[in-house]
């Protein structure tokens, strides 16, 4: 009988170092993400989250170490897998003068989406954008713009989805609605998701695993429930504050 094969992790970060001038933004971190898992990458500003995500997307060349996504080494082999990935960030805009339909058409073609018209119709229905499709993106509210960015990030039904603060600057109701859509997508498509967020309630709801970063290193890595228990806290936010302010003692105390 053949031995059962162990599925390759979707994302592997191996001893990743990224140095800008003399400062290490990421300092030798390693982790891997299994297919179909939702993981949060947390840390204070400057902890190295954006650098890590940008390296996974192929936007940055590591100083040393390796990053592979779906078996392709980033950034060198990124064109083998970029069509199977996507991302969303409030810090990147869609062209404002183009209508939602035009933007989704352009990105759908860039990602090689088959039956694009149907896909746009389906996404617009799922994300409640149908009545807005022919409105310029710049004339939308911030909540509507977030839904358009989400539509762009799902246009190719990505296997790997990177989300950088997907609900930043949204009101609680819209943020909750966005989380619901993301949950549904991950459940239905078995997508691998890496999420950077400062909203701990969001992380507790969406993520089965949390990687805590501080000054370019991984401080801790576990499920939200186990982290909360280990640090003797009631919420993930309190754990986050312990780690952010603790200067290493928090982890030792937790251990």
């Amino acid at each position, binding site marked *: 009988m053949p031995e059962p094969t162990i599925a390759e992790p979707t994302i592997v970060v191996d001893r990743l170092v990224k140095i800008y001038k003399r400062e290490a933004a990421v300092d030798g971190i390693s982790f891997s993400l299994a297919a179909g898992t939702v993981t949060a990458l947390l840390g204070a500003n400057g902890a190295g989250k954006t650098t890590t995500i940008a390296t996974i997307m192929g*936007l940055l060349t590591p100083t040393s170490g390796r990053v592979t996504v779906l078996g392709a080494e980033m950034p060198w082999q990124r064109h083998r897998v970029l069509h199977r990935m996507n991302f969303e960030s409030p810090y990147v805009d869609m062209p404002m003068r183009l209508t939602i339909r035009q933007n989704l058409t*352009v990105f759908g073609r*860039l990602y090689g989406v088959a039956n694009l018209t149907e896909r746009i119709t389906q996404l617009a229905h799922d994300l409640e954008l149908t009545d807005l499709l022919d409105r310029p993106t710049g004339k939308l509210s911030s909540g509507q713009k977030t839904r358009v960015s989400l539509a762009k990030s799902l246009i190719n039904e990505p296997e790997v989805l990177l989300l950088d603060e997907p609900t930043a600057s949204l009101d609680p109701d819209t943020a909750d609605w966005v989380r619901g859509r993301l949950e549904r997508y991950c459940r239905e498509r078995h997508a691998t998701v890496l999420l950077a967020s400062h909203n701990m309630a969001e992380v507790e709801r969406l993520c089965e695993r949390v990687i805590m970063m501080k000054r370019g290193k991984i401080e801790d890595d576990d499920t939200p429930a186990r982290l909360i228990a280990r640090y003797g806290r009631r919420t993930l936010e309190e754990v986050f504050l312990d780690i952010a302010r603790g200067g290493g003692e928090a982890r030792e105390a937790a251990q």
Partner: protein
Amino acid sequence: MSTQSSDPVAFSMRRVSAMVLRYWYLLRSSWPRILDLIYWPAVQMLMWGFLQLYVNQNSSFFTQSAGVFIGSVLLWDILFRGQLGFSISFLEEMYARNMGNIMMSPLRPVEFVCALMIMSLIRLAIGMVPVSLLAIAFFGFNLWDLGLALAAFFLNLILTSWAIGILVAGLLLRNGLGAESLAWTFMFLFLPLTCVYYPVAVLPPFLQTVAWALPPTYVFEGMRALLIHHVFRGNLMVEAFAINVVLFAAAAVAFFLLLASARRQGTLLQTGE
């Protein structure tokens, strides 16, 4: 998954056309952008055309070389507007904060460059065709009468403009919008050196060497030979093409080196100032 099965690594005309469509949507949605394509070339052409009329009345030499100023300004605009059309389309992504979406999409850099070259042609056509018709209406100067020579002039000028556009795009990726002024001013270095409005012989000898290293110089000399002496100097066009091939290849190499540097320095993440 609903992505098409075509090889994602291979060059894709679909992705090129997606970017052309993106810029076309933008142009279509903004009449000031379209007006801007015609406005300045028309103003330039009219100013130089009337100056030429005045000079013709006072100089027998210029009477014989009717149209040389208008021809110069129209060819200069092909060179300048070709590069500007390339660079402005690129800058639109930075102004729109859309570069992250583009760089993290499956679009390959070579496809991006191809889309920008196509947009440079489209923007040139929108600007230059009406202005060339104005030149006929106002001054009886028909650029299209140059025929095959015009095709050779155009090919060489557009290749130079794309080479400069590619280099400027690389500098923008590497240095962000802090390098924006290069997009608007880089080509003006060529204005005195490529002898747009006067023969190369006017330059001091050391600058003549510099001038003959630049492909547009051959085009403007060729245009003067055609309009003044009614001779098409094909050898000049061949030499210009050979230098253009080298220039274009050097610009492409510089672009990829600057892109690699931007990936190392993290400047693709910070495309602001």
